[in-house]
């Protein structure tokens, strides 16, 4: 299998560094002129204490105008710094993070100015909740694609996981069994993906899309056929209750956000750590990456290429299936048609945004989760921005990222190409 020579990058008439710097300056200008000048009168108040918390943290009250303008000015300065000098890797990232944070803070100030206080802790809690399926889905993508199989079927894996989780948990009355079966269901779709991609060498992007349609049709069909008439028996599962981790859960602000959630959040922590360490710190991961980058070389040194791919794809499906189960038995309980509502595609975007690394993907997933949470929470305080625009944000951010940042980081070299032993 000879790869078609990739169109050379030099042809792309686009200076990435300047573009990014320009974007920083743009964000700074938005901070100043939109969020600073156009803010409503009155302070933005953030509350950090949930009702019933042991330790109460004082509220933070900010004047939107000065804060946004200061942050905007900082962003513009950093933008010029970025354009003018070739910064090292770490300062570069720091600059990016500071600009993004400044944008978020001034945005929140602007939306809350003169309105009821913004419950920061519940905003972050719903961020975490919304991120769980995204993180697990993105990890599934990392596991597959690092071994050289493109996984667009994350959406389908989430959907089947959600379906199986709700149905099994409801009919057997065991949430743990539901969690387990959700994972298995994701794994089953992954087996289909693996067999058709690896054995029958179907184009993997096509395959992923088709499997998503299949999963959507199948669960929709079974939902109408079985779950609607037998709602009580088949589609009324309990949901996992939050588990508060002793000591850590009592830390103000951080505790309720990070250490007082359902089992799914802890599974996500563990999965991120395991996949990161697995892929980058172990011999196992080195082999997986070798298979994803240069299968022929990997084969030559005795790594079983096809076996590695099968295993990783199925592993990814199991992880995404858990994420799917979190959509039903982790939050709302019952299954609804197309309950994953495109989150698999967002997870895919998060993985690409995060440059095919577990940690980067997690960061991107959190960002996406945050904008979903913003849409929900800011809607309730009556923020001056339509929630449709907030919901658009992750997608726009991804387009900008793909056009601006991701170009330089590449997918694993053999990603999407079947391996034929010669």
């Amino acid at each position, binding site marked *: 299998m000879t790869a078609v020579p990739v169109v050379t990058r030099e042809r792309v008439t686009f200076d990435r560094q300047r573009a990014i710097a320009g974007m920083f300056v743009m964000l700074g200008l938005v901070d100043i002129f939109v969020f600073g000048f156009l803010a409503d009168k009155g302070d933005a108040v953030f509350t950090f204490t949930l009702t019933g918390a042991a330790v109460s943290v004082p509220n933070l009250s900010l004047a939107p105008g000065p804060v946004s303008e200061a942050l905007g000015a900082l962003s513009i300065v950093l933008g010029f710094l970025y354009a003018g000098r070739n910064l090292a890797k770490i300062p570069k990232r720091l600059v990016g993070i500071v600009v993004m944070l400044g944008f978020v803070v001034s945005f929140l100030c602007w939306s809350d100015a003169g309105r009821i206080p913004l419950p920061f802790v519940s905003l972050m809690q719903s961020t975490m909740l919304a991120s769980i399926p995204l993180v697990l889905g993105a990890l599934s993508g990392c596991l597959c694609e690092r071994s050289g199989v493109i996984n667009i079927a994350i959406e389908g894996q989430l959907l089947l996981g959600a379906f199986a989780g709700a149905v099994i948990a409801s009919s057997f009355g065991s949430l743990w069994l539901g969690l387990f079966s959700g994972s298995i269901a994701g794994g089953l779709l992954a087996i289909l993906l693996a067999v058709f991609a690896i054995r029958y060498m179907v184009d993997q992007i096509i395959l992923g899309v088709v499997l998503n349609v299949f999963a959507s049709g199948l669960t929709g069909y079974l939902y109408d056929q079985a779950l609607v008439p037998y709602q009580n028996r088949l589609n009324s599962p309990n949901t996992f209750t939050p588990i508060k981790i002793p000591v850590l859960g009592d830390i103000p602000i951080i505790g309720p956000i990070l250490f007082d959630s359902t089992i799914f959040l802890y599974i996500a922590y563990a999965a991120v750590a395991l996949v990161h360490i697995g892929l980058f710190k172990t011999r196992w991961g080195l082999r997986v990456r070798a298979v994803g980058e240069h299968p022929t070389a990997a084969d030559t040194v005795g790594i079983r290429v096809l076996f590695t791919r099968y295993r990783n794809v199925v592993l990814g499906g199991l992880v995404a299936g858990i994420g799917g189960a979190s959509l039903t038995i982790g939050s709302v309980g019952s299954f609804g048609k197309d309950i994953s509502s495109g989150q698999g595609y967002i997870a895919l975007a998060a993985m690409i945004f995060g440059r095919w690394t577990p940690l980067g993907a997690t960061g991107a997933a959190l960002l996406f989760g945050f904008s979903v949470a913003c849409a929900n929470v800011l809607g309730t305080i009556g923020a001056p921005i339509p929630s449709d625009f907030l919901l658009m944000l992750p997608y726009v951010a991804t387009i900008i990222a*793909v056009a601006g940042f991701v170009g330089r980081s590449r997918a694993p070299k053999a990603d999407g190409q079947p391996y034929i032993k010669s």
Partner: protein
Amino acid sequence: MSHQDAGPEGNEPTTPTEPEDSAENPPDATKQVAAGAGHPKGAETALQLLNAVLEGSSAVVTFLAIVLAIVIGGLLIAFTSPTVLHAWSHLFSAPGAAFSRAWDVASSAYSAMFEGAIVNPHTVSAAFHGGSIAAIFNPLSETAVNATPLILAGLAVALAFRAGMFNIGATGQFIGGAMIAGWIGFAVHLPMIIHVVVAVIGGFVGGSIVGGFVGTLKARTGAHEVIVTIMTNYVMEYLILFLLGLAVFRAPGLPNPVSPPVANNAMLPHLAGATLRINAGFLVALAAAAGVSWFLNRTTVGFELRTVGANASAARSAGMSPERTWIIVMVICGGLAGLAGASVILGTDFALTPQIYGTYGIDAITVALLGRGTPFGVVLAALLYGTLDAGSVTMQAQTQIPVDIATVIQALIVLFVASPPFVREVFHLRRRRRVEEGAQVLAKGWSA
């Protein structure tokens, strides 16, 4: 990937086992004996035909894929029906009942599908007793109506395939087209004929803007079109939701986010009387297919497009500009998907809703795959989809089997069509001698 047959010569991408073709190949042992014995010409043709079947030429594989998908769909119907499950519980006391029940349920579902999509015998006999003649053709009209946006959106995906691009963004482009066509339809007042023409052109423009954005980003920054199109789909979905909240787009006095209905002048005219929904959109779709076929095979830009699709580096060496081609292709593809949006808003739905895009965008991908990237194939595939969609509605009405079964069958068909080796294995067909895979269109993973 190296194996694509769509050379710049512009043949259909799947030609390898035409009968003449296999005669030129080094024949295998049995064939050699047969040919060497000097059989009469008729027998030889028959043998070649048999060979094509046994080896699974692309047409045979497509047919078998459809059969396989329908069988699996039937099994799914049979084994999720409550009455059948009940019969299975008495398997040992009445073993025949379980199987006959399963057969009954599946066959009644499929015959209802047939009645809804092709022809219903009751309407034929009713017509002889003074019933309406039009009612006989209602199922076919429904099939055509369902197929219309799929042909257009399918062309949008297929054309991009031929240029080596993967256009998942038909949904977003569809919305772009529907938005502008709809807006022209209800907000602008123009005389007859002119109005509908302007609205349809508006649909094309609306889609092209969205498509052109994707193409430009790819050409200028190298952003992968798969990701950008997925993202623009969602952006457009939220954009239409937002616009329907504004006074400009919102029908006054309605609680739901729905636009005002398009003016009568802007509606696509019915082709066969007011009772049948088939409208001029179907003709637009067929004309678009013919136009795309001409464009691909008879114009310079079409030639460049296919060359870029076959090998972008080679095209560049030959002095073509892949970047320019990408932009042109995406503008046209977007326009085609926008036409699909216009055909829905001006032909059947008449008002914008937040869900106007339905599943056309995703179905378009599978239609384009099933049609193997050729305009004619897309028309056939869209008609098949239209049949399944129209039929499944009747099926749900008659047998209470959910319409989603059509989605399952469609997904399975495409899955099998895309993997000829799998179909060959299932039906124990011989392995092809040539390295092929007809259904592989030109998508190349993330890196290209």
